[in-house]
């Protein structure tokens, strides 16, 4: 491809100059995307005078201060919030992947009456947001005594995550060659054993879906606000929201808590961005 492309195009020099424009636009947009984040992180390490006096300058020996972080650690139970988020997101994710993989396996592997119907039923949830059922969900959680209980959140998030997970995983599981499973069956393997054989084969898809269902759960404000607003069960997103509301005039504390809330996600994102991009791509096939 490279050789034919070259012969048809202007000289390398002109091509290089011509590609400068796109680079400029991309660099500018990247700056627009990152600048607000950098500004907040930078200023979180400055004294109040530094924040207001020279907001665009990185912390210097004079303006450096961690007073905001001291307030945050002293006043907010971020440790609890973080742990709650970790439990809710972790448990939801594990169960979404397990339950979703089981259902996808059934839908992709067996021909039975109602297969297409169940697949359609489960996929309705891709487009219809679960939030619309909030009134019913809250009533149910009240009657089950699951308000201010992390289990309530986990159950809702599983229901929220399953439709897309099953939709995508079914497509991936269909691609697993039949010979492999048949060979195992001839050796007398049970259907459960075959399932355990198939799951590792779709691991890349599981990874992608995992990253990409995890983010909305971690970031959700709606259900924590409605189902688990108590201080003991607040997730990090809700905790930050409430903390910021209380400390709105303490700029050091606000900037530090924003930074603390962002950094773990940014680090995870940097590590898993490839899986995430793959997840988005896979989600787009529909």
């Amino acid at each position, binding site marked *: 491809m490279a050789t034919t492309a070259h012969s048809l195009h202007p000289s390398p020099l002109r091509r290089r100059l011509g590609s400068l424009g796109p680079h400029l636009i991309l660099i500018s947009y990247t700056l627009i995307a990152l600048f607000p984040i950098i500004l907040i992180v930078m200023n979180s390490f400055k004294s109040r005078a530094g924040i207001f006096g020279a907001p665009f300058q990185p912390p210097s020996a004079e303006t450096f201060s961690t007073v905001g972080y001291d307030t945050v650690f002293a006043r907010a139970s971020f440790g609890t919030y973080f742990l709650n988020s970790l439990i809710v997101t972790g448990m939801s994710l594990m169960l979404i992947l397990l339950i979703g993989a089981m*259902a996808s396996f*059934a839908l992709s592997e067996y021909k*039975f009456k109602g297969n297409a119907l169940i697949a359609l039923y489960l996929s309705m949830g891709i*487009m219809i947001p679960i939030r619309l059922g909030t009134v019913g969900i809250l009533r149910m959680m009240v009657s089950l005594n699951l308000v201010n209980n992390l289990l309530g959140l986990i159950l809702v998030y599983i229901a929220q995550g*399953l439709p897309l997970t099953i939709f995508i995983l079914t497509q991936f599981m269909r691609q697993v060659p039949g010979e492999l499973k048949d060979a195992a069956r001839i050796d007398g393997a049970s259907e459960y054993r075959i399932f355990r054989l198939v799951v590792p084969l779709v691991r890349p898809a599981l990874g992608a879906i995992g990253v990409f269902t995890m983010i909305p759960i971690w970031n959700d404000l709606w259900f924590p606000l409605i189902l688990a607003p108590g201080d003991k069960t607040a997730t990090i997103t809700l905790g930050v929201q409430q903390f910021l509301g209380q400390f709105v005039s303490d*700029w050091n504390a606000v900037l530090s808590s924003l930074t603390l*809330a962002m950094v773990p996600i940014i680090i995870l994102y940097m590590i898993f961005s490839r899986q995430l991009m793959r997840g988005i791509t896979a989600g*787009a096939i529909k």
Partner: protein
Amino acid sequence: MQATSHPPRKARSFPTHLLVFLAPAVIVYTLFMVLPLIDSLRLSFFTTTPDNKEVLNGLQNYVTLFTDSLWAPFFQNALGNNIKFFIIHMVVQNSIGLLLAALLVSKGRLRGTYRTLIFMPTVLSVVIIGFIWNLILSPLWGVTDGALKAIGLGKLYQPWLGLESTALTTLSLISVWQFVGIPMMLFYTSLIGIPEELLEAARVDGASSWNVFWRVKFPLILPTVGIVSILTFVGNFNAFDLIYTIKGALAGPNFASDIMGTFFYRTFFGFQLQLGSPTMGATVATMMFLIILTGVLIYMFVWQRRVTTYEL
């Protein structure tokens, strides 16, 4: 194909393992998603009496929502604002996303870096993004003011988030800034899927890159345009977090930034002097459901039937 490769299994072992595999997903999904949704739809036809009993109310809740002077103006305001919110996303977010994707496709080695960095705000919580922009646009901090002054545009600055005339647009643009990565990624994925020979053929015929994009590439990615549009639609008519974070449940100033999500929240939980009402909340939620459903059905039955999908 499956039928021919494993013919005996169907007859051999229908129930137990199939049930074990399917039941957990179907049960959790039904219990915590489908039934509550149906329950919400049902509740919209009921009302609560003072002694806390639910009695059938026919379509009265809807009549109230559409005609009562305490409800209708708020409902119409929220719906109108939500439509504006959606249009701004369609026009600004999706065009920038398309532009960035088109530029990324040609950008060889660095494109992974650009893509990762531009997508970063998307993975952050809306709460964080909301607060960040609230601070940056705040007249107290003066960052925006200062930046505009530095380039000689100081006069342009206004506390956009606080003004009735600009709050909604500003909030929409913040949301656009955060989520532009999604259309960018979806467009990018479908653009790199176009076979090079097809583009080469157009170039040999002397087409400029502008023409190649609009005459060859764009028609080929129309299915993605549809996906991006419907995702934007569903996301926007379901939005809540950003407005709630920046403007609170009252979606001020004077309800100028109220959208369906915040209206639903206030109706259900109450605010200031008004008590929350599950049945009216369910009515608003049902309206949101019908709006989203209409969008999805148009997408499925009008758009998807009209648009030719090319096998690439």
